[in-house]
């Protein structure tokens, strides 16, 4: 497609979306509906060609798919893939009222599978590694035995912050007395962290705006 035409479409759709900052309007509605429709169709096509064809059809019918799946050439059919194929088809039974209950089998497999896969992963990443990273000395000395104030302070803040944060997430005890104070400190730690994360992420989002502004700049440059 002509580059200038692309620039015009890009700029027009960007302006239509940005018009939402003023209020909802027909231009925004048009861009929104176009975006939803095109993306849904595009991602469906991508899903078919990038996932279904190489990961299922390419495994079940390699000779038939050798033209579109390069790795399938000379491979023998892998009939284990009939199992996910059947589960996939079961999901589609939802479209027929009489058979819709069959889709629950596939859904149950997905939900149960997610639970099983995630448990050891979360035990590692959200528990073991986190606890391990917090077992640090509260007093940090250099090689000659001098106290490193900055590093020590940082370690104390980290350990106390984690403990206070954990106490805030105790649900089965009432947060009053000492526990209440520690929990209060925990929510302060969380809020300070959120504040820092907010500023950091907003800065990152500015780059998205910059990208759009550059697109508009290129469009204006093509006019003048």
């Amino acid at each position: 497609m002509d580059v200038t035409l692309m620039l015009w479409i890009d700029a027009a759709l960007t302006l239509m979306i940005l018009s939402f900052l003023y209020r909802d309007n027909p231009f925004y509605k048009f861009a929104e509906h176009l975006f939803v429709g095109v993306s849904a169709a595009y991602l469906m096509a991508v899903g078919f060609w990038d996932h279904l064809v190489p990961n299922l059809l390419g495994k079940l019918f390699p000779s038939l798919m050798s033209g579109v799946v390069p790795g399938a050439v000379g491979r023998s059919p892998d009939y284990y893939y009939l199992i996910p194929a059947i589960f996939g088809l079961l999901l589609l039974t939802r479209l027929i009222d009489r058979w819709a209950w069959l889709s629950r089998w596939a859904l149950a497999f997905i939900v149960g599978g997610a639970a099983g896969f995630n448990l050891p992963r979360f035990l590692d990443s959200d528990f073991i590694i986190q606890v391990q990273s917090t077992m640090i000395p509260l007093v940090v000395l250099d090689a000659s035995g001098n106290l490193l104030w900055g590093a020590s302070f940082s370690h104390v803040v980290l350990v106390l912050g984690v403990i206070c944060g954990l106490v805030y997430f105790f649900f089965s005890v009432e947060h009053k007395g000492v526990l209440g104070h520690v929990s209060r400190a925990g929510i302060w730690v969380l809020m300070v962290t959120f504040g820092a994360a907010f500023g950091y992420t907003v800065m990152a989002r500015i780059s998205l705006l910059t990208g759009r502004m550059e697109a508009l700049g290129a469009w204006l440059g093509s006019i003048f």
Partner: protein
Amino acid sequence: MHHLPTTRILCGVPHLSRLLCAVCVFAAVSSQRAVLAFAALFSLPRAVLASSAVSTLPRAVLAFAALFSLLQADPVLAQAGAESGWFNTDRTQALVLGIILTGAILLYVVLASAGRPLFIRKIAGLETVEEAVGRATEMGKPILYVPGLNDMDEVQTIASMNLLGHLATIIAGYDSRLHVPVRKSLVMSVARETVQQSYLTAGRPDAYQEDDIHYVSDAQFAYAAAVDGIIVREKPAACFYLGGFYAESLILAETGNSIGAIQIAGTARPPQLPFFVAACDYTLIGEELFAASAYLSKEPRMLGSLKGQDAGKGIAIVFILAGSALATLESITGSETVREVSEIVLWLFR
């Protein structure tokens, strides 16, 4: 409700999960993966099986899938290697921790099931759920529920479906309209099942509108644009954003804020929490999202599971304090004995 005959039989076994656990315990004598399977069957799937979101799903398939996937899961297999059998000595500490944590959960689940009253602290965001629904009913406006961007393989989405179930029961009682735009087709299926079940439970099956739970688009910002459009056109009185969110969190929450809706958000994704805290009335922070189901249902087994998880956090605090104290002593004294003790504590978390 329809099930295949085999499923009906298996679902009819009252202690199927316990039976599977017993098998796993037997296998655990020589198997680390089996112990982890045991852990999985007692903790996460237990919460999943008890949840309203999956109450309509065949539980035998759920349990089998959890067990099967756990046996294939990283990092156990990755470290054990495909041919090294069932026991991986490098991961023995995971076995010990798994037993401790799931043992604590199991203990409290049993106590709760036996009728021991369990306390759960107030969670502000959830206290206002009924108020938000009541307000929407008075104003004659709908309630918007956004279950996040993730698919059903994400624990946050499962937690979100649990909450949707509770919320739909309240909404059905108030005769308000619930609107749930979703990004993933599977989430749409589960959400429809969940809401339909809730309307049935509330005795209002006629009020259930399947089309109010609909797919939008898999594309992140197309979904955000569409939900924004829904917010400004329908002007819901209450907006719930519960699940896994990404860069669109602030876009959605700001739009909801601009129309003056009561907004309750919750996610376990730390980068998005600041935006929800800034733009919503109430935010469920991290684990509060997972505790919400137990909080709303007050179901003894879920409360027991929550109490067991608290015990796990207590254990974590004890080890952090012990590990830090030993590391500090080692740093100051340079003692070999302290280092050896420290090594033993660190071994558990290596």
